[in-house]
């Protein structure tokens, strides 16, 4: 692990809350790390386990899933599925030798630009400390 390691983070952002939150963070000129590669989905419920695994297989060092707060989902209950699904994928990651902390689920509403900046910064630091996923897979 070295200090110059810049992790690549795939972030799935739901269209209504978290994508708008990320947008607002940009509009407000809040600093958030460029390591985060945002992918817009309509709902965090659209994020299937296959997609998360695919991101890791394609070389992502971390995957972030952000959605609306529970009870605030634009699609009523799409994020109820997400909250059940992501812990399962975390278990699966541990089973195949990937540190489950490389996958994080959080809620960012469209009004929470500062939270978007905070969550992304935190997560980049978490993954930076874990090191490149390629090294982990070699072990």
């Amino acid at each position, binding site marked *: 692990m070295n200090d110059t390691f810049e992790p690549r983070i*795939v972030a799935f952002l739901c269209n209504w809350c978290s994508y708008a939150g990320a947008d607002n963070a940009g509009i407000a000129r809040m600093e958030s790390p460029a390591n985060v590669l945002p992918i817009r*989905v*309509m709902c965090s*419920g659209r994020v*299937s386990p296959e*997609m998360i695994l695919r991101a890791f297989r394609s070389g992502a060092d971390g995957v972030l899933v952000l959605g609306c707060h529970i009870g605030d989902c634009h699609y009523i209950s*799409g994020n109820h599925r997400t909250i059940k699904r992501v812990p399962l994928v975390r278990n699966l990651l541990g089973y195949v030798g990937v540190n489950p902390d490389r996958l994080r689920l959080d809620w960012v509403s469209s009004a929470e630009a500062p939270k978007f900046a905070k969550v992304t910064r935190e997560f980049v630091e978490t993954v930076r400390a874990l090191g490149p996923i390629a090294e982990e897979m070699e072990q």
Partner: protein
Amino acid sequence: MMDAGRHPNITLLTYSEVEQVSGYVGNFQVRIRKRARSIKEDVCTGCGVCQEKCPRRVVDMGFEAGMGRRKAIYFAFSQSIPNLPVIDRENCLYFTRGRCKVCEKECPAGAIDFEQEDQLLDVEVGAIVVATGFGMWDPTQLPQYSYGLSPNIITGLQFERLTNAGGPTSGEILTAEGEKPERVAIIHCIGSRDENAHPYCSRFCCMYSLKHAHQIRDKTGAEVYDFYMDMRAFGKAYEEFYERVQEEGITFVRGKGAEVEVLSDGKLRVKGEDANLGRLVAADVDMVILATAVEPQPDADRVASLFGLGRTPDGFFAEAHPKLRPVETSTAGVFLAGNCQGPRDVPDTVAHAGAAALEAVRLFNQGEVTISPTIAVVDAVQCVGCGECILSCPYTAIARDGNGKAEVNPALCHGCGTCVATCPAGAITALHFTDQEIVAQIDGLLEMMA
């Protein structure tokens, strides 16, 4: 109300309940149970002789809020629309004891029908407006206000009957003993803005409490003590009314009334803190009016599942967007009007209801519904018919077709893609957010950063 009753394009079904709703925007099928009034509606002239002659008298917990009585055959209230009585079968002597039939004997039109049964009506409608109103919070849940321990502790709604010219005292404000009160206390926020009851503000109690204070001053000259936390005179000309009432010699106590004690002589002692004076205060009065909270109807659960409505944490039905779509719901073609969506006063309710009606009319005028192209489609060849998607859909937009395969109704689908991620067979595609598109984005972005 009368206009609605007379309008040729309006079919008014009172004393009826929606039992079942199916279909989707523009094409709803609704089953309505029209309960048996025991009256032949096309024969009855609404003369009211039956109500007059009926020997059975019961306390009216409906319109009179327990302050007055009604007969076992009764009109919901005078000038009710439609102008038809109903037999309350739980109290009618014929239905409970098998004899009486006085109303049948007296009815000049021969409109009484004891054998009448509930009717089921199936109607097709294009849009639905839910306007089921609100319930009143029961103040016995906070025993410190002693509601129920003295007949002179009443709710704001009960006071409305007392001060109404058509009410049990013909509009005279009297205590249960039949005397004019000399001192009256009004306590705001009973069950509202209270972490032990409802956290929200019920919004219109401040204004009706001010009206009550004014009416008591005006009709009886009694001293009025008004215990309030914050006076929310939020509407047009409301602040001016508050100022007018302040000049009428009413004692406003800033601080919530904490307790009502029934004294041995029947008088009522209201205790509280005057936050402006920083002192505990008490007032001995003859009558206490509790401005009780507005809450969702007790059957809001059933109504929500019937019409596919969401609910906000306070229990009221959820609008599609709190600012931009205040009358639409998450189900296309179903609109909300009035207090079922949240507490609001009369002008706001009228505005809200007008907006809901216009949204429905707008649908009809367009004749077509524009939907977003981001919807889900099922590949029937790959679908194994497990039904997981049906369970995952927040909009009940997926059903089985004739072969047991899943089928998405494009008019109901909002395109969230939850079913796509749920389908174990990979048989569902989210248009414009396909797996291939997302995977290409993942790979492309990671390559770019490599």
